């Protein structure tokens, strides 16, 4: 028994799951066991969006210190607006809409890496500046009108099978795919190598530039996917739909046990952390806390979790 616990405790993702279960138990203790399953189902639905962008952000952060994608919220908005506008509530135009939205996200990724590589702008500033441009493009293109998603997209985003959201199953498949990508492919291994030591990776003959390029593209595309499904889920794209996802994307990566110094990624932790963040919000709502208290508690608990989970002890 102690052996299992020692092994578990060494897993970087364990803290996010402990935090998640603690928050869930506190919530059902308060309601007296009512709606325990419902809360989990809702959490699975809402957390899926955070998980998708979290996976992209995780890959970016894993490529080493200073790498972070701050343009994710703006890209979500742009993709959502492009998708719903091109689809124009028509099922027949679903595929064109998805392609258009992913195309826009592709351009975002291209632009981000162009700024980083060609202009040598630090990624934080590069993605921040480009997020302004992306948001303006979305505002100007979307003109603030909320267009309903086509029925098929809305169904896909909201269907549940035996209480489990269909979307969550797709995101599970996506997560397994990303985990295999990291563990089994040249690309994934290169990302880890760059995160651990970019010089050594380059000297070992790995294609550092191409890998980093692919990583920023991946992050933008995953943000695009989030934008598409989120607009299906919430009945249309809105210009503020990306709000709140900036903290969420970074927080789930860090709480989930991925090394901020780069070189170590952790997919299961993203799930635990995303569910934790949503359940935390549910718990504070259930307790009937005021808006101010909810904000304070969110901040305090996020800081507390990363303090307990610890920073990087193995930093070079």
């Amino acid at each position, binding site marked *: 028994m102690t052996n299992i616990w020692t092994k578990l405790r060494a897993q970087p993702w364990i803290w996010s799951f402990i935090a998640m279960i603690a928050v869930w138990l506190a919530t059902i203790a308060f309601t007296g066991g009512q709606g325990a399953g419902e809360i989990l189902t809702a959490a699975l639905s809402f957390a899926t969006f955070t998980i998708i962008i979290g996976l992209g952000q995780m890959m970016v952060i894993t490529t080493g210190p200073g790498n972070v994608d701050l343009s994710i919220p703006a890209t979500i908005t742009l993709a959502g607006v492009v998708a719903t506008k091109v689809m124009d509530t028509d099922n027949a135009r679903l595929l064109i809409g998805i392609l258009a939205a992913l195309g826009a996200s592709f351009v975002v990724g291209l632009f981000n890496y162009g700024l980083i590589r060609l202009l040598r702008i630090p990624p934080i500033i590069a993605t921040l500046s480009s997020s302004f441009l992306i948001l303006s493009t979305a505002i*100007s293109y979307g003109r603030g009108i909320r267009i309903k998603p086509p029925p098929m997209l809305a169904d896909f985003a909201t269907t549940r099978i035996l209480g489990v959201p269909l979307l969550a199953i797709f995101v599970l498949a996506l997560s397994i795919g990303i985990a295999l990508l990291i563990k089994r492919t040249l690309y994934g291994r290169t990302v880890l190598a760059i995160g651990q030591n970019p010089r050594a990776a380059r000297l070992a003959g790995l294609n550092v530039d191409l890998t980093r390029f692919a990583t920023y593209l991946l992050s933008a595309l995953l943000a695009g996917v989030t934008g598409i499904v989120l607009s299906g889920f919430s009945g249309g794209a809105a210009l503020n739909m990306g709000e709140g996802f900036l903290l969420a994307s970074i927080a789930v990566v860090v709480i989930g046990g991925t090394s901020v110094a780069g070189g170590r990624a952790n997919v299961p932790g993203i799930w635990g952390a995303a569910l934790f963040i949503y359940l935390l919000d549910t718990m504070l709502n259930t307790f009937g806390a005021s808006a*101010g208290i909810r904000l304070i508690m969110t*901040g305090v608990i996020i800081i507390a979790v990363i*303090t307990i989970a610890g920073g990087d002890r193995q930093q070079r």
Partner: protein
Amino acid sequence: MTALALNRKTLRALLPLASLALVLAATFYAQPRTMSYFGLNLMLQYAVPIALATIAQMFIITVNDLDLSIGPFVGLVGCIGATYLHDTPVLGILALLLCIGAYAAMAALIHLRNLPSIVVTLGASFIWLGIAVMILPSPGGKAPDWLKAIMSLQVPLIPFPIIAALLIALLVHIGLMTSSYGVIMRGTGGNPRAMARAGWSELKTKMVMYGLAGFFGVLSGLSLIGLTTSADAHIADRYTLYAIAGVILGGGEFVGGRVSPFGAVIGALTLALAGSFLIFMRISPDWQIGAQGAILIIVLALRALISAGEARR
């Protein structure tokens, strides 16, 4: 060769000033009536709180961290200023001191547990916003009269915001760039391990730098409500981005303790002016944010061009 090298270096140092001059010239061209004492006063008054927030961010960047909470923090200070500081000054001052202390405590937490500053400050931004919402649930409050008096000061010949901005830059320059303790603080950004081996506590340096950032954040919030005369929890949400952009526009580097107080203030002035310029140019409100992003990218591209020349030598 040396002459050329010197040229590149001066060019790089002059870039922030050149961007400011360019935006200023463009503004004058778009709206000649701004070329007056009152015009400049009006356009630049909000540059003072932005410049102070930028200086706060600069202190954090000096020690290789990044503060994503300065905007909500300035908003919180504004709320305290328009309520407690106005009604019960002693309590207000105590609350503001507590805020500065909280910043220093944040530094201790980040250093001792080796946590990423981005996440801790992002979490802290929720705390500041939450407290601000509790103090002032809806926009309102009253700024103390002495604050309003300071911010509406009329100085002959040169508009007050310009004098204030230069004064801020000069004070910080003396403290950070010329004093021996300033060298230690910048050295901690350059090579923390070397400074620690030389016997300077990194913990102490970081706490001092975060404390100074908190202090300038307080000044920023107070000067802001001196202008707006009332407060709101969300009054300064954009300042986080302004402050980072200001430091970078001013020639600051992200790592290595390479910062410039004058540059940071000039960067803040450029950003404040850019807002007015975009309005005068009748650029659609949709593209206001985008245009600011574009300005940032253009300046950084120019800098990269100069640096690329430097590297090629």
